């Protein structure tokens, strides 16, 4: 009897230790990113383009604009496809085609981002003949579609059946019921999902390495290579220069801040949605 209680207590203790073991690296990473990043982050970082080695100062203005353009392009591609496929998945459940699409979405979600980069290279870079913002946006968009589709599907399924029945009873067509009643009811959640997907996409490096590549200069061209915060951090991190390492930490701090703000906003929004639901 004694032995069994001891084993049980040890097990409980081991589980608590596991939690600590996972949170230690998180604390470590956040600590270094914040403490190193804060030292190098200043207004120049947001206002200036990179300077050559040896010249002090400089920033990532071009990379920040690049990341915004790349994620914007990705969203323009993925939001319509993702949301409408999500609507299809929730409206026409149980058909063979919708199972296949759901399976494809989960599969695409598991495809390594570097492989998506290779695909975007073959699909966009090779036909165009050079690296471009379009290719990078395409790669990120492909990654974003399944996330949005599955989130939309899950959220639409949560909408109470009575709303749909009410709309149909009033003589609405199915399309009208979906787009004026059901989707709006789930919209706060869907927007949260899109924001989270954007945060994840903004932190991606691998699919950009050989699609949007990098650019030392300020560019807003869709058909030219463009810089991004992540690729710039990578370039700086593996360089041998102290100055560039500092810039890399500053870039990392910006990335982590974006992720933190998005996840907190999403969590607050989700809590609010749950509260409103509780009142209904």
């Amino acid at each position, binding site marked *: 009897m004694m032995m069994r209680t001891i084993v049980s207590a040890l097990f409980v203790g081991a589980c608590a230790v596991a939690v600590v073991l996972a949170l230690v690296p998180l604390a470590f990473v956040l600590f*270094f*990113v914040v403490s190193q990043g804060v030292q190098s982050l200043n207004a120049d970082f947001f206002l200036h383009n990179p300077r050559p080695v040896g010249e002090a100062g400089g920033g990532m203005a071009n990379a920040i604009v690049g990341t915004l353009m790349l994620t914007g392009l990705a969203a323009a591609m993925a939001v319509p*496809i993702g949301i409408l496929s999500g609507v299809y998945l929730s409206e026409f459940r149980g058909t063979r085609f919708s199972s296949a699409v759901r399976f494809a979405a989960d*599969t695409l979600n598991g495809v390594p*981002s570097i492989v998506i980069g290779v695909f975007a290279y073959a699909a966009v870079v090779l036909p165009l003949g050079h690296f471009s913002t379009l290719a990078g946006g395409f790669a990120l968009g492909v990654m974003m579609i399944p996330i949005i589709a599955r989130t939309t599907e899950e959220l639409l399924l949560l909408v109470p059946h009575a709303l749909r029945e009410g709309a149909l009873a009033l003589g609405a067509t199915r399309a009208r019921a979906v787009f004026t009643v059901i989707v709006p009811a789930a919209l706060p959640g869907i927007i949260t999902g899109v924001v989270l997907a954007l945060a994840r996409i903004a932190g991606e490096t691998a699919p950009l390495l050989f699609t949007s590549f990098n650019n030392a200069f300020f560019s807003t061209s869709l058909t030219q290579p463009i810089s991004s915060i992540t690729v710039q951090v990578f370039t700086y*991190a593996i360089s041998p220069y102290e100055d560039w390492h500092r810039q890399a930490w500053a870039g990392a701090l910006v990335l982590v801040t974006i992720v933190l703000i998005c996840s907190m906003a999403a969590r607050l929004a989700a809590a609010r949605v749950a509260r409103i639901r509780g009142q209904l």
Partner: protein
Amino acid sequence: MRSTDLGFRVGIGVFAAALLLIVVAIGVSLANDSSLSLQRFGLNFWRTSDWNPVAGEFGALPFIWGTLYSSVLALLIATPVALGIAVFISELCPSMLRAPLIFLTELLAAIPSIVYGLWGIFVLVPAVRKFELMIGAAPLGVGMLAGALILAVMVVPFTSAVAREVLKTVPMTQREAAYALGATRFEAIRAAMFYARTGIIGAVMLGFGRALGETMAVTMVIGNNPQVSLSLFAPQYTMAAVLANEFTEAANALYLSALIEIGLVLFIITLAVNVLSRGLIWSMARS
């Protein structure tokens, strides 16, 4: 069905079909663009380990070895931790702690790979180097150990999130029955985990799939040296890392095609692992 409803179904069906098409297109285009290398080297590509693109030698064994070895090591480290967290959050912790702990583990998954890589280069690698000096190994810092450690950190949140969902599907009666028979906490949880074993294996495999395709952080700390070695301290290479490092340098069609073939095989492996793990989780959820 009303004709407007049919139009609606077809209209949004086109977008759903686009999703399906993308997955097919990835497979087809990778297979198509690697045909040169597939025809030239056949299976020898994966059996030889000389990688010297300048001399036209393409042996990809070190890459697939590095990918599998680092992922298996990461899994060995991450699985107990991830399952411990899942059990702690879903079975043990006070409900007040639950939401913050879930948030923190999700944050672990949300931190970009490149940030882990940066941290790896400047914090983890020097720490590993110190450890290597202590035990008398060559003090490189970069290598399999650093790669596996950073992979483990990145895989933990995925495995634990799925394992938590799986544990949630275990009926309360399972635990109540165990407690009613006089089981300790450990024995009751063991019973619940045994009940959920298929789903838990699925969760572990899903983590494995993540580890196989992880690119930036591993590229930055594993050493990028194509060799097949069991040594934990040897610098090695992975499939994802060679793509990240060499893709823009591929100067001729054969080199490019060889790299795309590595991408194709990485795609197929992760596809297989994902399908299998989803199948396991799905069959668990159904029963």
